[in-house]
């Protein structure tokens, strides 16, 4: 140990030079420090515990939405109370841990809690933070203010290949503010928005539409609302004509706003004159773009063909008759029948094909081309089915296509279609005689869907995935999200109900089964199957009765108030908006959901502990034990409970370590192949370069560490290393419960010139990324985070990080070129990063590090 100022010997000299009474006080203060340290960790553990419980509660709530559970309204009340209480505890413990460093988080918690209470009590007036929204801003949380169909329409923006007509929405509260000429007589009646602001916002929206396109006409759809319900049978459409704007679109925008205002007043007055009380309504305004054809697609027909859908198209001029298709409701949406009107010679179809007129001249010949090309028919059909899932019932989509086949979805309405009686005997017979291709797996989202199987993986291009097919994959990887938006259902061999893809499947209400053994083999590419996700069964062929029963909204659907209530609640509980801890909005005020709050708290808690020696210098003098290692590493250990064997000597060895994370880390650190890769090459130029480096930039954000220290518990490791000239912090919780598991890795510094240090950072980034860490790099500071992973993944990561610590020692000094970096990466990968026979950089597997099991950590001996 060095005797540098502030070092241990200097510290002891100072202690022994003090009078006895002061030495006693110092001893007492060391004891107090230890207890304070334990208190620090207790707060941290409490945050982990609560985070875990909240994540479980959230997953449970989400699974409830997926249709797996039978629940009632009382359950929702109780669930929100329970989860809110836990989030409150998290904010409390974070502030206790950090010396009240995050007080504004209480306010955000309180705001979200109030919103949730409002939703439960039916007070939805405060849900929309603004009275006028661009269509692209509308989400499920706005449903009470704009209606379900407008939210579904807006949600289509996430579907690849679907474009929405430009437009905006005036919420019910916005309309009320706009039309309310009289002063409110009490607070209950008062609107939340200043009237002038609402009018100005409408002006802005009109000006934006006028200024960014050629549309001079604007269609207005009136969405009537009653309480929490959208009155689905009330449909009103109007057209507003706008003046040609000058360089400044403002006057034309004000003119349009006044017309909209007049229209809203007239609707209100008509309601009043009809003797009814004034109903709430929202307004959807969209730009009418120049188009060649338009039409609608009904997700379900009223022609008695229960399994069919109907698409209609007419030329925009309205002078000619149109085409109609009756289509199957499953991919590839084959036509059952069609009615195509012949076109005169010279008629220009979309994509500029010209009609020959032959079909008119000779009616016995073919009917001629359809107005809508087949690929657009399929896309529209698939979009209508996706909307039906979202809204929970049959829908009518309206659309317009330009001459170059650029199609826009312009509107969405729920429709009422008479249903055929389901023959229960036929249904039962069908299910009992159908061949079951596979069963079991975790139900992520219930529902029934049929179609042809398409095998997919992370590299699948969404555009190559056949719309409406059944996606079958080995892993439920987040990279499959775009595919989900084109699929009718998804089945995977591996994946959890808590993962990102599961959340997307529930958002889309896409039937989803994860963890189905051998799904890829049992469901061959191209085979036609029916997925009953609620029952966790995949049948061969299309089970028409089962599909018909599913379409009868028998299961939990958006038509149920409880479903809508839960979905609305989840919008303020589940989404994770704060993803990047280095982003400017990673603040208490940036938290928009409970998930944001606990994620923020977890990150800040880990950060506090990972850097506690800097944040809490008063805890730096506590008693530690030096480890006896067969490595040139001076490592001291502080056991906070269960980290070392009770009979461990003053200088414990690896065998005395009972902390699983430390043991596994040391296995990697001492791995013989890690030392083989160690090739330090240090020149005088490097040393001089390192000496001139500003210390403050080397350790930015990471802090200056006094010594190599491992704080260990049975399932916890916080290790701060100063190996060579770099500084390294690893913070890890490792247990059976994956929701609590995390690995935090921070590395900074080095002795070589900046270019070579950056090459090492590149090397580290590649290694961390290969292990699925989320990595951020700032100069020569690299931070990696791995969360919510099972114990074996943490074990593997810790072992690799141990080896990485040895390999990376002064490695920057030998990285003279990018080729050196590549060579190092391949060498490391061959030994430590091979998975299923594949290694980072495409190298053949030469060896693989044995992964320890949680029950019996393997110890590599040199």
């Amino acid at each position, binding site marked *: 140990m060095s005797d540098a100022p502030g070092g241990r010997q200097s510290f002891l000299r100072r202690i022994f030079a003090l009078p006895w009474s002061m030495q006693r006080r110092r001893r007492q203060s060391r004891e107090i420090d230890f207890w304070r340290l334990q208190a620090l960790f207790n707060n941290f553990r409490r945050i982990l515990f609560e985070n875990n419980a909240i994540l479980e509660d959230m997953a449970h709530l989400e699974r409830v939405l997926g249709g797996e559970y039978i629940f*009632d309204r*009382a359950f929702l009340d109780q669930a929100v109370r329970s989860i809110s209480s836990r989030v409150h505890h998290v904010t409390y413990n974070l502030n206790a841990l950090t010396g009240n460093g995050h007080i504004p988080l209480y306010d955000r918690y309180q705001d979200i809690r109030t919103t949730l209470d409002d939703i439960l009590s039916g007070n939805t007036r405060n849900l929309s933070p603004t009275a006028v929204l661009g269509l692209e801003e509308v989400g499920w949380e706005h449903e009470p203010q704009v209606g379900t169909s407008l939210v579904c329409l807006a949600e289509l923006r996430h579907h690849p290949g679907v474009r929405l007509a430009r437009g905006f929405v005036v919420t019910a509260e916005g309309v009320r503010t706009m039309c309310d000429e009289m002063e409110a007589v009490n607070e209950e009646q008062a609107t939340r928005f200043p009237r002038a602001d609402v009018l100005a916002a409408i002006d802005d929206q009109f000006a934006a539409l006028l200024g960014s396109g050629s549309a001079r006409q604007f269609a207005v759809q009136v969405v009537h609302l009653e309480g929490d319900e959208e009155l689905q049978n009330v449909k009103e459409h109007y057209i507003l004509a706008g003046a040609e704007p000058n360089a400044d679109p403002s006057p034309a925008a004000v003119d349009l706003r006044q017309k909209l205002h007049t229209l809203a007043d007239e609707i209100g007055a008509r309601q009043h004159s009809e003797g009814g009380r004034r109903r709430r309504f929202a307004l959807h305004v969209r730009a009418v773009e120049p188009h060649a054809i338009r039409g609608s697609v009904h997700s379900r027909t009223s022609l008695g063909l229960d399994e069919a859908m109907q698409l209609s198209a007419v030329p925009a001029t309205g002078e000619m008759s149109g085409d109609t298709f009756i289509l199957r409701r499953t991919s590839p949406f084959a036509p059952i029948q069609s009615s195509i009107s012949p076109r005169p010679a010279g008629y220009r179809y979309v994509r500029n094909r010209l009609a020959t007129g032959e079909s008119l001249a000779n009616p016995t010949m073919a009917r001629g081309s359809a107005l809508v090309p087949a690929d657009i028919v399929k896309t529209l059909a698939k979009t209508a089915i996706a909307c039906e899932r979202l809204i929970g019932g049959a829908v009518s989509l309206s659309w317009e296509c330009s001459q170059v086949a650029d199609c826009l979805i312009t509107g969405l309405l729920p429709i009422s279609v008479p249903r055929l009686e389901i023959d229960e005997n036929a249904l039962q017979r069908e299910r009992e005689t159908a061949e079951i291709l596979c069963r079991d797996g975790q*139900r992520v989202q219930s529902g029934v869907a049929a179609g042809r199987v398409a095998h997919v993986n992370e590299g699948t291009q969404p555009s190559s995935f056949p719309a409406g097919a059944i996606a079958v994959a080995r892993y439920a990887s987040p990279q499959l999200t775009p595919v989900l938006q084109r699929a009718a259902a998804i089945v995977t061999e591996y994946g959890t109900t808590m993962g990102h893809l599961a959340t997307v499947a529930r958002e889309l209400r896409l039937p989803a089964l994860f963890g189905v053994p051998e799904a890829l083999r049992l469901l061959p590419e191209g085979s036609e199957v029916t997925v009953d996700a609620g029952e966790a069964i995949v049948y061969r062929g299309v089970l028409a009765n089962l599909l018909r*029963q599913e379409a009868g909204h028998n299961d939990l659907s958006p038509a149920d108030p409880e479903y809508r209530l839960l979905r609305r609640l989840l919008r303020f509980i589940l989404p994770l908006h704060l993803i990047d801890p280095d982003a400017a909005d990673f603040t208490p005020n940036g938290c928009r959901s409970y998930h944001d709050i606990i994620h923020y708290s977890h990150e800040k808690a880990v950060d506090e502990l990972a850097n506690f020696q800097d944040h809490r210098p008063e805890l730096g003098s506590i008693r530690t034990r030096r480890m006896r290692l067969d490595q040139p590493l001076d490592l001291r250990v502080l056991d906070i409970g269960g980290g070392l064997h009770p009979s461990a000597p003053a200088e414990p060895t690896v065998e005395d370590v009972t902390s699983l994370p430390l043991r596994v880390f040391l296995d990697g650190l001492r791995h013989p192949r890690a030392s083989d890769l160690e090739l330090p090459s240090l020149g005088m130029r490097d040393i001089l370069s390192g000496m001139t480096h500003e210390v403050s930039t080397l350790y930015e954000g990471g802090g200056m560490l006094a010594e190599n220290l491992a704080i260990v518990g049975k399932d916890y490791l916080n290790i701060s290393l100063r190996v060579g000239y770099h500084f390294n912090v690893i913070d890890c919780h490792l247990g059976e419960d994956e929701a609590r598991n995390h690995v935090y890795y921070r590395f900074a510094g080095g002795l070589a010139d900046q270019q070579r240090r950056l090459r090492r950072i590149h090397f580290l980034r590649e290694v961390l990324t290969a292990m699925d860490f989320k990595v951020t790099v700032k100069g020569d500071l690299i931070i990696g985070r791995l969360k919510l992973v099972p114990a074996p993944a943490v074990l593997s990561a810790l072992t690799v990080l141990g080896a990485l610590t040895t390999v990376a020692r002064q490695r920057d000094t030998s990285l003279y070129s990018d080729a050196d970096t590549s060579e190092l990466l391949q060498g490391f990968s061959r030994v430590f990063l091979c998975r299923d026979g594949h290694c980072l950089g495409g190298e053949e597997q030469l060896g693989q590090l044995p992964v320890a099991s949680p029950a019996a950590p393997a110890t590599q001996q040199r």
Partner: protein
Amino acid sequence: MTTPSDSSRLRLLILDDEPIVCKRLKPALQKLGCTVETFTDSASALARLGESAFDLVITDLKMEGLDGMKVLTEVKSSSPATRVVVITGFATMETARESYRQGAFDFIAKPFRLGDLLDCVRRIGSELGKDLSQATAK
């Protein structure tokens, strides 16, 4: 494969004052091969039980008017062979114990997995020798 006749089906009555529970249980149990009637008020349910015999009654516990415990008592006294399954969002050891004391076949706390209830109904069907579909979730 023969089609089950109505007499071979399990006859089932569901009573829950939250319509969502009836709405969701009915098709799932029909899918299993049961004949299902649903009620959201206990007076109507008891009147129907007086008119017709049921193999199984699934009842909520906490309801307006006659609560589920009284329905359980009435059913077991008028038709001892009828099985009763209690489902409740206010599950306590005491209410569970009391339900079993009054003759309940099973006691299930809400929220519950649909598959758990179907398993329970399948057990009852098996005891009564009724045809029930096996092609459902476990």
